[in-house]
């Protein structure tokens, strides 16, 4: 299925602007260990005080990418580990037979950040929260595309977030982890073309056509029949950001289970 990427906003490792990510994709800037968090000044202080670093990263990217459709856009929130710092604190409290914090409990569930987004924007559109191992980022795109198609949505917001896994779980981590959030506003290409009859299309100016038809992308998934026994050391979100900001035409990324093929179809009309 083809789609366009209307907005791409990412924050992590000291890389904040589109220029930063371009420089990263071209190898001019590196991911550093900066823990700088988005200020999120638009969120009132009484709401902001409960936001963990995980929630701040996610909400900044979500609110920026979906700025023009905040109250209506359906969304997919994705994270492999979720806000695990909160969860592991709760588990430690259970082990120590302490009373649990209701706030921490409420905000530790996997759809908590989606809920915060919905409360803050008043957006009541369908929202899902997914987790799919090392494939979480691409599965999230797949899920978003399936929803676009099945529901005839014009656009959908994808928000992917990851923060470093707490020390007690580090022994189980095989990937090079970074704290990062990335939000994409994806649009369907099918609705646009359905609106115009072929006859009408001919009469549309070339220039206008290319505006109507920005670069489209496609994502293909195949089982990985190879013998890859280890997880890919690089997180898929970084593979994607390099592909996107390098204006690459194709990228294939393998994981233990899948082969993902990303293609950019340069606009021809």
């Amino acid at each position, binding site marked *: 299925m083809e789609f366009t990427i209307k907005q791409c906003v990412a924050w992590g490792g000291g890389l904040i602007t589109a220029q930063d990510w371009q420089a990263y994709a071209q190898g001019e800037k590196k991911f550093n260990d900066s823990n700088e968090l988005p200020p999120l000044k638009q969120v009132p*202080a*009484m709401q902001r*005080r*409960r936001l963990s670093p995980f929630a701040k990263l996610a909400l900044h990217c979500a609110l920026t990418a979906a700025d023009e459709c905040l109250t209506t856009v359906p969304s997919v929130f994705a994270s492999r580990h979720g806000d695990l710092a909160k969860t592991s604190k709760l588990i430690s409290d259970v082990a120590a037979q*302490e*009373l649990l*914090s*209701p*706030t921490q409990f*409420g905000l530790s569930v996997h759809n908590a950040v989606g809920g915060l987004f919905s409360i803050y924007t008043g957006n009541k559109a369908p929202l899902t929260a997914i987790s799919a191992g090392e494939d979480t980022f691409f599965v999230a795109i797949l899920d978003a595309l399936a929803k676009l198609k099945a529901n005839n949505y014009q656009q959908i917001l994808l928000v992917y977030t990851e923060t470093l896994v707490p020390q007690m779980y580090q022994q189980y981590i095989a990937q090079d982890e970074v704290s990062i959030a990335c939000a994409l506003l994806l649009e369907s290409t099918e609705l646009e073309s359905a609106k115009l009859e072929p006859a009408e299309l001919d009469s549309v100016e070339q220039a206008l056509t290319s505006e109507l038809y920005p670069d489209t992308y496609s994502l293909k998934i195949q089982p990985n029949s190879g013998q890859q026994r280890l997880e890919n050391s690089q997180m898929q979100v970084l593979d994607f950001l390099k592909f996107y900001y390098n204006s690459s035409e194709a990228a294939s990324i393998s994981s233990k289970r899948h082969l993902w093929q990303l293609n950019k179809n340069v606009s021809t009309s």
Partner: protein
Amino acid sequence: MNNLSVEVKQLIIDTLDLEDIEPADIDYEDALFVDGLGLDSIDALELGVAIKKAFDVKIDNNSDDSKKHFYSVKTLCEFIAQSRS
């Protein structure tokens, strides 16, 4: 203003992550919830747990009495003092 009230105010600030607020900013008799300080129902639960832990008092969830006890710093202090005696 006694030591207990300062303790309660500090507990409120620490428990509810009230950034940029000092104990002196919280009025002794003003409402803590909605109109006054602007705390909400999640804060009420959180504060209940924190007070149970800090002062070892029993709080009856959802009773009219506990609503009265949680009205202000003053009512909270009176409730804690009374439960301890």
